[in-house]
């Protein structure tokens, strides 16, 4: 028997894909293929190995960018939350990074770092890091003072308070930030490929759009969304494993 959570996920998938299929068939737009046509294109790409080659290219800036954004982002976020001086130095950088339009920053990145892997990793980080850092620092700053006081009253050291109270207390918001940030990172990886030089999955999207091969284009987009969804599920599992008490019985 399916768990409720899995059932809801499959059901919502079925609803969306059903609607997509319907929209494709009733000719909403000449460029919108049906769900099944797109799946066939995806299947063809899998069989020919094209999709795997593409991901070999895309995953490099994506993985590097996501790993840097997650680990260094959370680290900087914790430090910014704990230290006023560090907050003064670093918060503005991330606020600007979040607010500035990426399209405007990309030419600057290309001038500074060229059109290779480095620029693409930067794009992923620019998309992913601000949310992660700002969420983390906000959560750390807003740790309820009563629990911190409790730890001190039972003889907790500064280190105990940070590791055993502040970080677990901040973890729900940190993970929310990770979910938002990593999703944005995925978008960043594709954007980098669309706007810097076409490689990997971004190249499939660009090329199939130019040759009016819409099923392939949608297949590529679908695959990246699917990967992002799988990764978010993985994040959820990691959060539940690390902080069992965070799961206070939500809908799914």
């Amino acid at each position, binding site marked *: 028997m399916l768990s409720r959570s899995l059932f809801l996920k499959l059901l919502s998938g079925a609803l969306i894909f059903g609607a997509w299929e319907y929209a494709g068939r009733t000719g909403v737009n000449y460029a919108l293929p049906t769900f099944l046509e797109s799946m066939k294109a995806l299947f063809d790409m899998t069989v020919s190995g094209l999709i795997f080659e593409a991901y070999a290219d895309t995953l490099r800036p994506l993985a590097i960018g996501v790993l840097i954004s997650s680990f260094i982002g959370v680290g900087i976020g914790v430090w910014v939350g704990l230290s006023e001086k560090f907050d003064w130095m670093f918060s503005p950088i991330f606020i600007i990074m979040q607010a500035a339009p990426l399209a405007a920053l990309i030419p600057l990145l290309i001038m500074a770092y060229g059109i290779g892997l480095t620029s693409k990793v930067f794009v992923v980080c620019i998309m992913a890091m601000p949310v992660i850092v700002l969420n983390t620092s906000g959560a750390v700053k807003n740790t309820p003072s*009563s*629990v911190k*006081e*409790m730890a001190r*009253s039972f003889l907790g050291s500064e280190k105990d308070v940070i590791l055993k109270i502040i970080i677990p*207390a901040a973890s729900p918001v940190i993970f929310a930030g990770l979910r938002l940030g990593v999703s944005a990172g995925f978008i960043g990886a594709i954007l980098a490929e669309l706007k810097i030089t076409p490689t990997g999955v971004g190249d499939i999207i660009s090329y199939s759009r130019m040759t009016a091969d819409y099923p392939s284009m949608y297949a590529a987009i679908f695959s990246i969304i699917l990967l992002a969804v799988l990764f978010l599920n993985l994040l959820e599992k990691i959060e539940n494993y690390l902080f069992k*008490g965070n799961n*206070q*019985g939500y809908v799914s």
Partner: protein
Amino acid sequence: MTKEILENAVSVKGVYKNYGEVEALRDMSLDFPKGQLTSLLGPSGCGKTTLLKIIAGLLPATQGEVIVNGKVVTKPGPDRAFVFQDFALMPWANVIRNVAFGLELRGVGKVEREEIASKYIGNVGLKGFEYSFPHELSGGMRQRVGLARALSVDSPVLLMDEPFSAVDEQTRRKFQEDLLNLVKNENKTFIFVTHSIEEAVYVSDQIALLLPRPSRVSEIIKPSGFRHKDVDSIRKDSEYLDTVESIWKSLRTYVE
């Protein structure tokens, strides 16, 4: 009446506490006899929680000293345990981890501390809930967890900051009865902050009435006649009722 020389577990001598311009405590001196429950009773804002936190070492005094079992203290120590008004539980940890937390911070090994914690979880009536999380418990149960945590570290002095004010009336009455039994059975000194006159007269061996800012002790009352009575009869005892009334008359002038 026989003269008993009571040893004082805690002594507060000439404590002042200022928050900037505001004088919260002025020349506060008070003794807390060993093995007894002393209440700090007074209207809101009279500095009772401030004094309790200074005794706990969570707040520094601007002037004056706090002596616990003969030694001057300025920081938290293994000789004092605190029970918080809002329970201060860790929502991400289960009951047994919360109760064992004081021991965890002292470096006690996992098996040993969970064993000790289990015992106190049973003592406060939460057996079976060791692996529940705080959000699965009622307010009264959460406060029992806080109490079990404070008892687990086996400190000679127990500081309680309005521990029953965040639970419903029925649970509160039950807690007051349990507290009387606890004071009788455990050989600890209790310092109890409350704003409820009935509660103070019910549970205390002595009551210190505190006046509003700047706080100082106005009088010390030692209800005695009914202390030996069983928990149910105390609330009907005439000395209990008279004491409550006379305290109210004293405090009334400061509230109006």
